[in-house]
Structure formats: C-alpha cells, structure tokens
C-alpha cells in the first residue's frame, strides 16, 4: 500500500482512509457508526488489521482514545458520524486539547452538495471544534485525503501534541482515486524543532548553581515527551527537591525522597511552601496553571524562574519568567545535564542542606494525615490500600473531584503514563472510558478507575462496552452520596448551603454492574476494604464494581482557597 508500490490501484475514499490509518500503524479505533460514515465502516468491515472498538456514546470514544494515547504514547484514533456524532465527541476533544494529548478524530460529514443547507445530521464540525483542536481539516477532494491524514498524524503527535479533527463528507468516501501515502511530510507553516534557541541554557545553569533554596516544578510535559530518564539525571546531579503538577505525577518517582509531593490547590504543605520560599525555580514542561499558582501576584515572590516548555505561548503567559527555554523537555534537559556534570562541585551544598532541613520540617507536619480510627470508610484509606495491593504498579484513571485529588495524593506514582486523568478541562465522565483505552493498550495490566458516584454516572453506559470487549477494569467508586468537591466548597465558602450537591436516587451499583455481566461488591466497613480489593484483583474475565460507602463529611486537605497565595493553605 505504501508509496513504494509502483502499480497504483484506485481506491475509494473510505478505503484510502483505512489504508492510511494502517500506514500510520493504527491498531485500535474507537467509534460509533452513523449515516455519514457508512462507507468507512464498510471498508473497516472488509479488513482485519484494525480493531474497531464500539462504544456506547461518542464522548466515550474520545475519552477511550485519549486514555489509550496517555498510557501508550501512541495517538488515539476516533471515528464518529456527522452531526450529533461530532458534537458528542467535542467534550472528549476539548479534554485532550487541554492536556496536550495526541489524537486524530475522523468525523463524517454530509455529502459535499448538502453542506450548508441544514441537511439531516449536518453540523459545522470544523467550526464547532476549532477552539479545542490543535488543527482541523475539511476534505473537499478525495485526492487530498491521504495527504491530509498524513498531516493530521504529523500535527497531532509533534511539537506540543493535541487533537486533530478531519471532517470527511460522505460522497468523498465513495469517490475513487489512486492511493499514494507519503512517507514523510513537511509543512511550510508548521515545523516543530527540538530546541528553538540554546542561548538561555548557560544562564539557566548559572542560576541553578547559585541557588540556595531551589525548587524543581515538573508537569505533564515530562510525561508527554518521555523525559523521565533525563529528569532523573538532572535530579541526581542537582539534589534539589521536586514537586509535580497533577499532570506530571509519575514523571519522577513519588517514593523517592527528593519528591516532596504534588503542588497547587490541593498540594502538600512542603511543596507549596517550598515554592513560596524558593529563590530559583526550574519549571519543566509545566504551564503555571491557575490551580498551581493560586494568586499569581503572590506566586513564588522571591524566585528567579527558568521555564522549559515546547510551546512558546506557555512562556510568560501567566507568570513572567526570567530564563525561557523553548524546546522539547528531553532535549533541553540533556543539554542542561551535559553542562551541569562538569560543574557539579559548584552547587552550594551547605545552603542546600539547610534548605532540605527546612523542607523536612514542613514535611513533618504530615499534611495528608487523616483519621485512621474512624468507623466510616475514609476514601484516603481505600487509595492507600489500592496502592499497597497493586504494589504501585496499576494504571489509575480517575474522574474529577475529591476522589481525583485523593488518588493523586495517596497513590504514589513511580512511573510515567500510569496516572490518567483530565487535569486541564476537569471532565467528569472521563475515568471509565479512559480506563477502557488503557486496558486495550495493555490487556494484561491492572487498570483501576478511581471515581465517585457522581462522575461514574456521566459515562456509565460504557459498562456495556467493557462487557463486550471483556475488559477486567477495577472500578473504585468512592461513594459519599455527594458531589464531594462541590460540597466541600459549599461547606467552606457558602455557609454549608449544599445546593444540588447531594445525590439522591442512586442506583444499586452492585446490581447495575451485575446486570451488565460484571461483578459488584458493596463495602461499608473499613475492615472489609482490603479483602474486597484483593478479591477484585483476582477477577480477570470481567470488570469489578467496588462500591465503597465512604465518609460523606471528608474533605481534601490541604487546600489553597481561590485567590490565596501558596503559603495560605487550609490544613486538616
């Protein structure tokens, strides 16, 4: 099929699409059929190389492809029909966009002659998705199709990755042309580089070596660029403390003593105070998100800031930085490491020792402590046990809310790509379909979806998909009867007026899981937590729904209230 083939065959647009996906090495597509994509589904039916995963809602297709991409590092591929197929996919596309996840989304479109006449299931997919994609295309000529698919994968996976939408009108999928797939591509308007400019590196080294109270703040860029090895070397050379953003967890081992926890709104006392008091900050593949900085006017008031990022627009967007370093995290860290190595002895070890003593004093506050004597199940306890029983080796997906923060705090991620959550957009409903994508990428791995009774109901229809493909996902439902994070804010900031945060009329999750053909357990006592988790791990042929009835009054601590500085934490 590749361009080497001298004798050109005429293929339909649908066949060209499928052949192009094969050339890209695509093994799984997540999708849902409909009128505008019937030719494509027919082409998929007539081949055996690409496995199509049939979801129950297009939102889940995008989240599953997203989870697949986050865990495997390969781009996720989605196929949906026109109109509602495309609009349902938008939440998942926006989720991937906010977290820079490589994804190619094929949307069907009404035939070319019907575009613009409000045809059945017509929507301007390119227009609707424009603000939440890295780029998008509308195919107007079947001759452009192969090249456009090549461009879509190239744009999605290089530079700062992101989702790319390709909108294909139905008539184009039926038209025939020769298939010629380019092996390489270059675009005059898009040329990502490994390092944009080396001139700041010397400056960065000088700042790092002169530091007395240094901090390293590393984000999702480390994971996306597979730069954990380089980061570990930097850490080894410098001996500095490191904090991760929510998206960075696993980039550097959480059980290493140089890791001082996650930072930000629900970050640790030591990480946030370390940030607030540092004199040199090395930001690595992180974007100074408002959940990290708190009040930007009070952010790192005494620090010189070095910022490594592949996206120039991330630099000095929210916080003005002193040394911008634009390029891939891995490439820049390699440069830095090479220059640091011969100058290691210049590190102010005395000052660093004092700084570590200060950090350890903050650490001794044990800011993540919780009541271990409680008769109610504490959500933190469930996550600690999950960590123990899976030996820290599970892929953990999560939804959004309190359970997400507890998972981030209590499951110690030692490896990259193990923590799969919607950090930027904060999409409830992400966890379960994302877990499907992860399990399909790694069929033998333990995949746990940490969720709550609110989030899980946003994509619960996927229990059916999970059954169809026999995915042994462990659903850890931290059921406190509340939209916990909403309830927590209402308790703190709205004088306990719990408007719409209490969940009534919950289903019997055990029966629900069983009705789909899965196993279900309800756990109400702390002493049963460990046994239930162990039992769940033994089940390999279907999913397990563990409905933990947890303490409804538990809050996530520490917490920086909105508008607060990093030194203004509410502690337990």
């Amino acid at each position, binding site marked *: 099929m590749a361009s080497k083939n001298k004798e050109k065959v005429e293929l339909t647009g649908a066949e060209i699409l499928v052949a192009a996906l094969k050339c890209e090495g695509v093994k799984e597509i997540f999708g849902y059929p409909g009128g505008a994509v019937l030719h494509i589904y027919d082409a998929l039916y007539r081949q055996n190389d690409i496995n199509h995963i049939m979801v129950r809602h297009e939102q889940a297709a995008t989240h599953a492809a997203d989870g697949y991409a986050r865990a495997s590092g390969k781009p996720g591929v989605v196929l949906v029909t026109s109109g509602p197929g495309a609009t349902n996919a938008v939440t998942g596309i926006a989720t991937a966009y906010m977290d820079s996840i490589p994804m190619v989304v094929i949307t069907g479109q009404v035939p070319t002659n019907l575009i613009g006449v409000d045809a059945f299931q017509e929507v301007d997919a*390119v*227009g609707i998705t*424009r*603000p939440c994609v*890295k*780029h998008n295309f*509308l195919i*107007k000529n079947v001759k452009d199709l192969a090249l456009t698919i090549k461009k879509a994968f190239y*744009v999605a996976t290089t530079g700062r990755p992101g989702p790319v939408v390709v909108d294909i009108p139905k008539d184009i999928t039926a038209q025939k042309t020769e298939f010629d797939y380019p092996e390489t591509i270059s*675009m*005059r*308007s*898009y040329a990502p580089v490994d390092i944009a400019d080396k001139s700041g590196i010397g400056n960065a080294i000088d700042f790092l070596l002169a530091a007395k109270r240094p901090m390293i703040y590393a984000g999702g860029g480390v994971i996306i660029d597979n730069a954990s090895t380089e980061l570990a070397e930097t850490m080894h050379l410098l001996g500095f403390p490191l904090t991760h953003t929510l998206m960075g967890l696993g980039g550097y081992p959480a059980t290493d003593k140089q890791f001082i926890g996650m930072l930000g709104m629900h970050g640790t006392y030591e990480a946030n105070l370390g940030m607030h008091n540092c004199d040199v900050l090395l930001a690595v593949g992180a974007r100074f998100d408002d959940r990290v900085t708190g009040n930007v006017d009070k952010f790192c008031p005494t620090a010189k800031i070095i910022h490594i990022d592949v*996206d*120039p*627009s991330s*630099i*000095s*967007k929210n916080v*003005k930085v002193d040394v911008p370093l634009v390029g891939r995290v891995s490439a820049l860290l390699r440069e830095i490491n090479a220059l640091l190595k011969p100058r290691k002895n210049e590190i102010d070890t005395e000052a660093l020792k004092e700084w570590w003593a200060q950090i350890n004093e903050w650490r001794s506050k044990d800011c993540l402590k919780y009541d271990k004597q409680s008769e109610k199940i504490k959500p933190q306890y469930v996550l600690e046990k999950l960590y123990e029983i899976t030996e820290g080796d599970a892929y953990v997906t999560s939804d959004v809310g309190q359970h997400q923060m507890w998972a981030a705090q209590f499951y110690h991620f030692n490896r990259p790509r193990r923590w799969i959550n919607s950090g930027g957009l904060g999409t409830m409903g992400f966890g379960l379909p994302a877990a499907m994508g992860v399990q399909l990428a790694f069929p033998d791995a333990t995949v746990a979806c940490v969720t709550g009774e609110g989030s899980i109901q946003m994509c619960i229809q996927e229990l059916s998909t999970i059954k169809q493909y026999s995915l042994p996902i462990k659903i850890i439902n931290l059921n406190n009867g509340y939209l916990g994070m909403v309830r927590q804010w209402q308790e703190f900031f709205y004088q306990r007026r719990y408007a719409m945060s209490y969940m009534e009329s919950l289903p019997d999750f055990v029966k629900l899981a069983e009705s789909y053909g899965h196993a279900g357990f309800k756990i109400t006592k702390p002493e049963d937590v460990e046994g239930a988790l162990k039992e769940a791990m033994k089940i390999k042929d279907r999913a397990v729904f563990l409905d933990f009835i947890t303490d409804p009054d538990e809050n996530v601590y520490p917490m920086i209230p909105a508008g607060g500085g990093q030194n203004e934490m509410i502690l337990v």
Partner: protein
Amino acid sequence: MRHIISILLENEAGALSRVSALFSARGYNIESLAVAPTNDPSLSRMTIVTSGTEEIIEQIIKQLNKLIDVVTLDDMTEGKHIERELMLVKVNSGDEKREELKRLVDIFRGRIIDVTIDTYTVELTGDSEKLDAFLKAIGEAPILEVVRSGTIGILRGAQALQG
C-alpha cells in the same frame, strides 16, 4: 499601545476564522482586520490592528504563530513601516456647503468619485489618523455613509515579509 501585525497565512477556507476566533476566544482587541490574496495565490496577507499591554501583544504574536495556517508574521510597529487605509465617504452636498466640501477634499488630497445633485462620494487614502482628521473637518452633519477598508501596512526599505 496600538500595534499593526502583518500575517502571511495559507489561503485556505477557514484560515481567516481561525485568526478571528483566536482574538474573540482570548479576549484580544481587533481595531481593524484586512485580508486578501497575494501575488502567490496560495498565501493570504492579513493586517490586524490591535492594542494591548506589551504582555498581551507578546501573547497575541505567540498565539498567532501557533496557528498551523500561519506561515509567518511581523509586528510592523517595531520597525519603520508605511500604513494606508482606504475610505469612501458619501456626503450630503445639497446645500451651500458644496464648495467648502470640495475644498476640503482637495486639501486632504481626496477625490470625488461620484456626484449627484445632492451628494458627493469621496475617496481618500492615508493613515488612519488622516482619515479621522478628514471626518472631523467635514463634521457629522453632512455624512451619509462611511466605508473604511481597515489598515494595511508594509515595511520600509528592502525588507519584505515572505512565505
């Protein structure tokens, strides 16, 4: 501060909306926007007049560069440049001010391109300030219609913005 940003972008359907959508989504100002194909039919040249703090302008330029369809761009305000805008004004010339209007058009080096018993249509080019000054000089009263093209700009000297 006011900035004139010149952009070369792929001459493709939707490229214009990517730029305008970027400005609305991120809350940036657009004072004017002018766009047309260039001598290279695969490229469009767009001129945006915007305003904001230095930080905002820096972000605007970075965000524009990030758009896949943008080939290259230049903040003209940073160097010596020439800017021009075309304006068509239809004025009521039916009263005793007909002669005075004609004189003002001459002073501003404009041209009367259409005449009726009651109206003149005036064509005027120049930088935006000159066009503003003309409108001020003739006053609100006679104006029936104002059409402005938005500013376009080009660098002085041999330097050229190329794709």
